[in-house]
């Protein structure tokens, strides 16, 4: 098998996750809404997981709403806070499409970033007025790893009486997601849990309108029978996020080596970045083809965000940064990525680039 270096796309299950999921597909198959014996166990599983996710996010357990993933959580957070008095949403230009497209669809305001991909705080200040319901800024960018000044963004939002939402999908395991946000999005499968799980944390007393009508699951914020196996796994994964932090040393060593390749640019270099991510483009080479070349040599990296790869789409993140490159290769590491893996990757990048340039 090849070396997996696409952790910003998804992560392998951490210890205990598979067992927790399996238990809910076998003996604990019951519906957590049922008060009888078969429902009690899965209900306990869900509430235990809720505490685990709450602890990761530094919020009370009853502030956690389980969703089908970060996309749904982002949609719920943004659509759910609009009011007649405050009908406007503000986000930054490098947000994930599940934020950006909501803001676009509802006619909101998009704040630019600088060449390193960091939000322009002056522009944010100008964009936020008393018509704004919420400001949404991600904790760190999935494509470049660039970290946003969350505390400053929250302050600007609050000063205008707006709520602050943070898409913290990429955060856990790489940085603390215990931040001062009214609404916070996290995802299960980015932290070693199963796909199809996510959560929105909601500050106590905040008026949030459910976006799905049905029975009153999740305190009325999100209708639908709970994905118990997924939530069980999500909870277990949330327990591990603190012990998995990785140091930037390996990323920096890889970066130093690839920078020796001529015509190679590392995106967001110079900004504060997640220690696990490096995004680069090579002059004259198509990232999708470079990605294929590396895959064939046994290295699974991404050519842009996984959601967009293969479509020939231009990265809205690089575009917002004013980059001359349409897309990039993204290497994103996990806690088990070894220094040897990265040395081998650097050699493979050199070899593949050389071969592609020779044609």
């Amino acid at each position, binding site marked *: 098998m090849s070396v997996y270096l696409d952790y910003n796309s998804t992560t392998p299950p951490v210890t205990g996750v598979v067992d927790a999921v399996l238990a809910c597909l076998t003996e604990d198959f019951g519906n957590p809404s049922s008060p009888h014996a078969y429902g009690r166990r899965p209900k306990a599983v869900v509430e235990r997981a809720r505490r685990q996710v709450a602890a990761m996010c530094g919020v009370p357990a009853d502030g956690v709403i389980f969703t089908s993933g970060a996309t749904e959580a982002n949609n719920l957070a943004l659509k759910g806070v609009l009011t007649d008095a405050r009908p406007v949403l503000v986000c930054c230009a490098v947000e994930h499409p599940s934020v950006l497209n909501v803001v676009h669809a509802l006619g909101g305001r998009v704040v630019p970033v600088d060449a390193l991909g960091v939000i322009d705080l002056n522009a944010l200040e100008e964009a936020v007025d008393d018509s704004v319901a919420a400001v949404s800024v991600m904790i760190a960018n999935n494509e470049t790893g660039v970290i946003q000044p969350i505390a400053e963004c929250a302050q600007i939002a609050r000063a205008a009486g707006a709520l602050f939402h943070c898409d913290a999908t990429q955060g856990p395991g790489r940085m603390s997601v215990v931040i001062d946000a009214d609404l916070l999005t996290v995802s299960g499968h980015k932290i070693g849990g199963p796909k199809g799980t996510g959560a929105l944390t909601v500050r106590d007393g905040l008026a949030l309108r459910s976006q799905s009508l049905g029975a009153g699951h999740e305190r009325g914020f999100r209708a639908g029978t709970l994905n118990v196996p997924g939530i069980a796994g999500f909870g277990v994964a949330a327990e591990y996020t603190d012990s998995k932090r990785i140091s930037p040393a390996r990323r920096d060593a890889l970066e130093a080596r690839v920078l020796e390749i001529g015509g190679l640019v590392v995106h967001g270099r110079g900004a504060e970045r997640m220690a696990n991510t490096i995004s680069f483009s090579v002059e004259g080479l198509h990232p*999708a*083809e470079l990605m*294929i*070349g590396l*895959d*064939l040599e046994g290295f699974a990296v991404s050519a842009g965000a996984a959601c967009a790869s293969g479509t*020939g789409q231009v990265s809205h993140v690089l575009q917002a940064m004013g980059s001359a490159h349409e897309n990039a290769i993204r290497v994103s590491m996990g806690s088990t990525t070894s220094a040897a893996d990265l040395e081998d990757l650097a050699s493979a990048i050199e070899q593949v680039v050389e*071969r592609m340039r020779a*044609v």
Partner: protein
Amino acid sequence: MARLVVAMSGGVDSSVAAAMLHDQGHEVIGIHMRLHDAEPSETSRPGRCCGEQDSQDARLVADTLGIPFYVLDLKQAFKAAVMDPFTQEYLIGRTPIPCVACNGVLKFDVLLKKARALGAEAVATGHYARIDREAGGLLTAVDPSKDQSYFLFPVKAEALDRILFPLGGLTKAQVRAEARRLGLVTADKPESQEICFIPDDDHTAFLQRSLDVSTAGAIVHESGETLGQHDGYFRYTIGQRKGLGIGYSEPLYVLAIDPATKTVTVGSDDRLHRDGLLVSGLNWFDRPAPDQIVQVRLRHRGDLLPCTVSDGDPARVALKRSGRAIAPGQAAVFYDGARVLGGGWIQEAL
């Protein structure tokens, strides 16, 4: 054992080509070329060459075989090399054959370069044709009813060393049987006969949308008599009888299309028979001497006509047996028995 790229369209032929090479122990990489955004079609159905369903079929075949599979976005190159010229050809009154340009440019130039960039030694496709490894050059398929050599004339001779046609020695029935034996999802998929980027096989509707100039004009008898009007000369091709919408004392056929005056000239069948033609854009694997009698094919599945070919480009082709309805824009491909000597584009009948 070599690293090879197989162009997997999602049809049974390229599926089996990939399977055969994989079976021979090669490191096979499946690549599906995304060539255009499928236009909305009233009847989404199989048998087209690069729709979403086709790439998923190819993906499933690759998974069954256990080979890597990628979709490459080649829309820009396809538009420039195939789609735009297709429209342009109709605009200048010709009848293009886009699959030939797709082979010459997309598959055996663009894709071949990409394959080499990925460290592959060659590109394989599911075409029914053969390559003569000893003497060099292109040969017809063993199964004459499936032979696709006509569509391959623009492939550069030097590229043949880096091309494989694993199906050239097989019949279609054998290919389907092999696909069934391997349990490939494409085993019973219908044949694609249409032009892949034309929805519903309706090229006139496609051209109507693509052309932003009026191509309407008169239908004129060769005697000079105006017989009626047409609403677009791109609707006609040389030799066409049906769809003229004109009653006349004898059967009428399209003899000529003049884009300058937008006139479609019609007349009797005997005027469609010509003894020569001018061919340009020639690509030779083995150019015949000017006095050598070879055979030429003037349309897909057309008869092989004995002829001689002059020097130069354009070359004059003297037919020893007259050809009927020679349509500018189609390919003229020259053969010596099973050997493909080369080919070019028909400029005009002489």
